[in-house]
């Protein structure tokens, strides 16, 4: 269907269903229960899941297919965001032109950076991209303050009056899709459960499904095959009459445009941009998301993005008070002991948990989270079928480059 084979159609169908039902799936615990802390089904986090999913999908097109490790991808997300917010401030409060602007600006910037950086490969390429991104960050923070707002960034202000809008004086513009406010939500209560359906989230979700679909098409295309060939053996590619440079540059720009798309969507969801969005740690984050999920796989980067954003937003909010609430049913001594044991890993210690998770995944699941999923799948399959069958299946799966 849609030019995809059966497996890929199945994959995109699953992703679509998950995106649509995310408000239910991510809110498994009833409101007010001790476990409600783990609910992630609120608009901001759901938006972040899909937006960083897009970012990681785009990054993976470059890194997963060609093996070129860009260490400055956050710069494209950043310039995309700046482009988008200026569009909202000056042109129209409709998010569509602003997202498009984000993509275009990021694409142009990626073209320039890629043109220079792709003259080198391996770690030399990584450092070149890192250098460009760090320069962007440093300049946005300081010298370019008139354009970027510097440390305090850019927001929509009451003084902004976009060309295509009729705001009353003093009214602060809101990003919308043809009049539909990005922040409007619809809620359903079911018993103790409360589910939120947010306009912005569904816009971002639809965009992510499209981005995911496009990524599958690219991966499965002759172009995608050439990219994998670049990763596999660039020498052979050259002696087969193919010029690697335009291929890598094209995918670099596509990947940069994905980052710009993510940046534009971030602005559409939450109308503010700050320069830290371009700091090297942000670039490192998308690298980690991709590797953690499974570089070169289709769904891996999305899983990795979700995993890291979940840790950042959920684990960091668990404070001592919440731990006390959880363990209140225990006898006092054990309660204190448990709190002492768990406390360093949550709240302000969330980085520690994140670091341990990185190590655990890479040590025990060399293929990332996707491999974890495959292993679980294999265990179940082994129960059903004869073991040889499953083994053969597993081997086959291993050989399929994208899952």
């Amino acid at each position, binding site marked *: 269907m849609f030019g995809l084979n059966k497996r890929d159609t199945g994959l995109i169908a699953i992703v679509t269903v998950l995106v649509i039902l995310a408000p239910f799936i991510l809110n498994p615990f009833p409101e007010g229960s001790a476990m409600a802390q783990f609910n992630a089904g609120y608009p901001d986090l759901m938006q972040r899941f899909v937006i960083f999913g897009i970012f990681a999908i785009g990054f993976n097109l470059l890194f997963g297919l060609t093996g070129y490790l860009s260490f400055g991808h956050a710069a494209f997300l950043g310039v995309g965001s700046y482009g988008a917010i200026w569009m909202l401030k000056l042109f129209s409060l409709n998010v569509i032109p602003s997202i498009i602007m984000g993509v275009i600006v990021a694409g142009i910037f990626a073209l320039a950076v890629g043109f220079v950086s792709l003259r080198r490969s391996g770690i030399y390429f990584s450092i070149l991209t890192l250098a460009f991104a760090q320069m962007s960050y440093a300049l946005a923070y300081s010298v370019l303050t008139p354009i970027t707002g510097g440390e305090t960034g850019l927001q929509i202000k009451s003084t902004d009056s976009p060309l295509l809008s009729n705001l009353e004086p003093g009214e*602060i513009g809101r990003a919308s899709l043809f009049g539909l406010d990005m922040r409007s939500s619809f809620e359903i*209560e079911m018993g103790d459960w409360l589910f939120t359906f947010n306009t912005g989230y569904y816009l971002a979700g639809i965009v992510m499904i499209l981005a995911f679909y496009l990524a599958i098409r690219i991966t499965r295309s002759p172009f995608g095959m050439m990219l994998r060939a670049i990763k596999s053996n660039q020498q052979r590619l050259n002696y087969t009459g193919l010029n690697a440079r335009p291929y890598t540059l094209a995918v670099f720009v596509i990947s940069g445009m994905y980052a710009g798309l993510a940046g534009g969507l971030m602005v559409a969801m939450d109308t503010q941009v700050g320069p830290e969005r371009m700091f090297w740690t942000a670039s490192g984050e998308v690298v980690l998301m991709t590797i953690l999920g499974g570089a070169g796989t289709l769904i891996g980067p999305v899983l990795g993005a979700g995993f890291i954003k979940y840790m950042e937003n959920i684990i960091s909010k668990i404070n001592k008070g919440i731990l006390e609430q959880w363990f209140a049913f225990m006898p006092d001594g054990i309660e204190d002991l448990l709190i002492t044991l768990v406390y360093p890993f949550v709240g302000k210690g969330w980085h520690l948990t994140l670091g341990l998770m990185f190590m655990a995944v890479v040590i025990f699941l060399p293929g990332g989270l996707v491999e974890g999923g495959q292993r679980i799948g294999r265990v179940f399959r082994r129960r059903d079928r004869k073991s040889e069958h499953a083994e053969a299946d597993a081997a086959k799966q291993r050989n399929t480059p994208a899952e």
Partner: protein
Amino acid sequence: MSSSKLTRRGLIKTSAIAAGAGLALPTYLRADGHSGFTNAPTGDTVTLGFNVPQSGPYAEEGADELRAYELAVEHLNGGGDGGMMNTFSSKALQGNGIMGKKVEYVTGDTQTKSDAARASAKSMIEKDGAVMITGGSSSGVAVAVQALCQEAGVIFMAGLTHSNDTTGKDKKANGFRHFFNSYMSGAALAPILSANYGNDRKAYHLTADYNWGYTTEEAVRTSTEALGWETVAAVKTPLTQTDFSSYIAPVLQSGADVLVLNHYGGNMVNSLTNAVQFGLRDKQVNGKNFEIIVPLYSRLMAKGAGANVKGIFGSTNWHWSLQDEGSKAFVKSFGTKYGFPPSQAAHTCYVQALLYADAVERGGSFNPCAVGEALKDFQFDGMGNGPTLYRGEDHQCFKDVLVVKGKENPESEFDLLEIVEVTPAAQVTYDASIFGGDLGECNPGA
């Protein structure tokens, strides 16, 4: 208004709503269907959001802010010794929570990044139903979160943020700042500098290359140049700089006899340490002792500079050695609970929490517009800084500013600064219009 809003979600305990709604119950939540503002507390509790840096360079200040908030919650709910509630000039707070509702709180990590801070604040608003967000340790974060709270229709009580912008060009009707700013630092420092170092000085500025640095340099320059000082040079240093030797080494060659370090946090610790290492303070230039000035002191961070702070002038919002009743009550209460004195960050956060609660009581509602109305031009005392005004035009507090000096013979690890002068509020007050910006209308959301 359309149905646009951030979601409201009080913690639904074992409520009648749940019991009554056995089946799916779709509801469009509209302003008229509810109390008319975002996250109106429905049960017998109210949730506040404490958004502080828990990772990154300001984690220690964030931890101290969080301690202060926990203490404030304890006091608001009637626990502990009541702290500054006893000395606060307004007596609206009863120790029975806020308007009879028990105060609960959620915490989050700003990471001192505006994106992360907004994500954290949004989760508090969308998921936890927080009706007020407070905290933070930098102006970038304060401005970003303040703008978010304006959009979402909740109150933002700024934590530590010193840039003029927060209540200047980026001010918002839903945002309030108790902390002082760069302008006040400059205005408060100038007379003391004049008295101690004379009016014939040549100053060399090192300025952190971002908004706060610019406003601080501007403030100190303006006020010292008015004294007759000459500014020899002003060099911008990158935020990410750790070793300032290449900026400090040329200072002596320039003929300057005063070095002003417009740095905060880690930058300040490093640049000050480096400056002292270079022996600047032992030098004589133009027949005078070479001096160093740090416009904004943070005691927590100054600790990192160790003995290097001795004898160096700066300003601070509050210091635990103040002897007024409010400060003493707060230090006692905080010190008893945690075993060490509170920082200025802790102080401003504690005060902000109390001021918010008090404004809700006096305004009779959690509605941000009612709170804003109650805080507008509110005059109070007994919170550690003498008589204070929450100015209605820019939501900035005007109060005495402390000029401090690194103590020569500290008696303990907390005893780093000594108060040189308490500059009266009148001397640091300025016209609200000078920084531009537009407060806008209060936004109750929903």
